[in-house]
């Protein structure tokens, strides 16, 4: 009996994590805002937004999923998922026609990497929002 009480006390409180994680994907930092962590949410939003905008201004290209040999599949499908992880920034860029074709040049190449990196940093923010929502973290 006492063991059961201890186990219940140690378990994290069951809270819904779907909403915060979805919002964290859609708007970087949004999950943190929803979970009442506005300072951290603002830092995440600013970091992902600035990195994404710099990538766009450097005329970085958005990846389109392509299959073929293993390397092509990993690069293009992985790059597409990385771009998609930026949420609303990716969707607005594609819908409003700001997605650039792939061009030769080192600045464009950095831009492409910035766009993917912004999405990958947002994945980290989503994981953090999940941990806060499930009570694993404050």
């Amino acid at each position, binding site marked *: 009996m006492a063991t059961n009480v201890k186990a219940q006390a140690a378990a994290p409180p069951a809270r819904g994590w779907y909403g915060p994680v979805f919002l964290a994907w859609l708007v970087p930092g949004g999950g943190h805002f929803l979970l009442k962590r506005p300072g951290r949410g603002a830092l995440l939003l600013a*970091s*992902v937004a600035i990195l994404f905008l710099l990538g766009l201004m450097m005329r970085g290209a958005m990846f389109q999923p392509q299959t073929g040999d293993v390397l092509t599949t990993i690069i293009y499908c992985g790059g597409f998922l990385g771009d998609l992880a930026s949420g609303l920034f990716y969707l607005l860029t594609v819908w409003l026609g700001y997605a650039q074709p792939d061009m030769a040049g080192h*600045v464009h190449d950095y831009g492409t*990497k910035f766009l993917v990196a912004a999405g990958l940093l947002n994945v980290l*923010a989503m994981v953090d929002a999940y941990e806060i929502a499930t009570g694993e973290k404050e």
Partner: protein
Amino acid sequence: MPKMNLSHFEAAILFALFSSVVLGVITKRTDADRLRYGVRCFAYFVIALIGLGWLMKLGHG
């Protein structure tokens, strides 16, 4: 959309800065630890950037 040209160094510093901010925000539990970790990450990025830059320069001869 304005166009921006950054050198490799500028792009790498900006990437290091924003990555360090995110890593600092998501990894630690107190604000002081977050700040310390973010600054440490940024310093490591810059040290690696300059070190690898010199390594490539020396490697090229």
